[in-house]
């Protein structure tokens, strides 16, 4: 009831819209001109040839692009591999030292704690034995 005036207006606008669409689509003369354009088929053939050439180029360029990527990737991958190898070596050497209880500090360090670690790892000494060794050394030092 209340919507009727709006509906009528909308219907009227729809009819006007349809007429506009039909008017805008009424280009038969232009279509006829286009169909009768000179060398139309020759231009279609030329476009087909261009499209085919572009397709072939795309296929070739695909391979070239792949090669280009490979060329850039190989040095980078080599670098990464070298880094990983160096890292593995370093880790391996580190873990060996830990396993045997020998680190560089064991040779250069002068603290008692270091000595104790070295001894404990090598000979599996008990705490009492370590203590007695230290006491012996101190006694020798006093003499």
């Amino acid at each position, binding site marked *: 009831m209340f919507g009727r005036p709006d509906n009528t207006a*909308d219907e*009227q*606008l*729809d*009819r*006007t*819209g*349809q*007429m*506009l*669409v*039909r*008017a*805008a*689509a*009424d*280009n*038969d003369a*232009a*279509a*006829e*001109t*286009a*169909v009768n*354009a000179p060398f*139309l*088929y020759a*231009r*279609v053939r030329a*476009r*087909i040839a261009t*499209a*085919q050439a572009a*397709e072939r180029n795309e296929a070739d360029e695909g391979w070239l692009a792949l090669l280009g990527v490979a060329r850039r990737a190989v040095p980078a991958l080599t670098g990464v591999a070298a880094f990983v190898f160096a890292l593995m070596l370093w880790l391996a050497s580190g873990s060996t030292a830990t396993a045997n209880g020998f680190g560089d500090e064991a040779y250069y360090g002068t603290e008692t704690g270091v000595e104790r670690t070295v001894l404990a790892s090598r000979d599996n000494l008990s705490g009492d034995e370590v203590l007695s060794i230290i006491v012996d050394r101190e006694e020798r030092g006093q003499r």
Partner: protein
Amino acid sequence: MHPSDEPTDDALVTATCAGDEAAFEQLFERHRRRVARIASRFFARPEQIEEIIQESFTKAYLALHSFAGAHAASFSAWLAQITVNACYDELRRMQRRPEQQLGELNDAEAHALSTQLQRTTNASASDVESALVARDLAGKLLARLAPDDRLVLTLLDAEGLSVAEIAQLTGWSGAKVKVRAHRARAHLRRILRKYL
């Protein structure tokens, strides 16, 4: 030559796929008017229509093997699909190019359009069509629609196709075509209200 002696479209497609260039030329001669007519529903300038003809036949040629392989539709229906898609692509390209957008009307054009529309809303349909001689104004107005909206409205109102036929041509679902048509009409109403 008697019409029944002429090779069918399917025979010409097979011959073209086998490398017979003359067969494709025959297909071109046979269907170019129909392609031009479809393009002319969307574009007013001959060079635009010619562009669509070239694009459609090029796409058809390059995809001819897929058609010859297994396609339920006739060559004519298949070519119409390609043409509608080419028109749709061109409408979208035009919308992206600012220099091609004809949406803005100057004051004189807006006044002329308003007068025309006022006259048309009070007149009969036959008067209206004769009154709308200012086709470029109608084109400018429709250029404000989204490509999807314009495509659906043109196929519905200018070509007089059904929802199912439009769905087949565009590859959209029937529901999408209906929703698009509804939205397009609402959008066109909003545009027209400005000038009435």
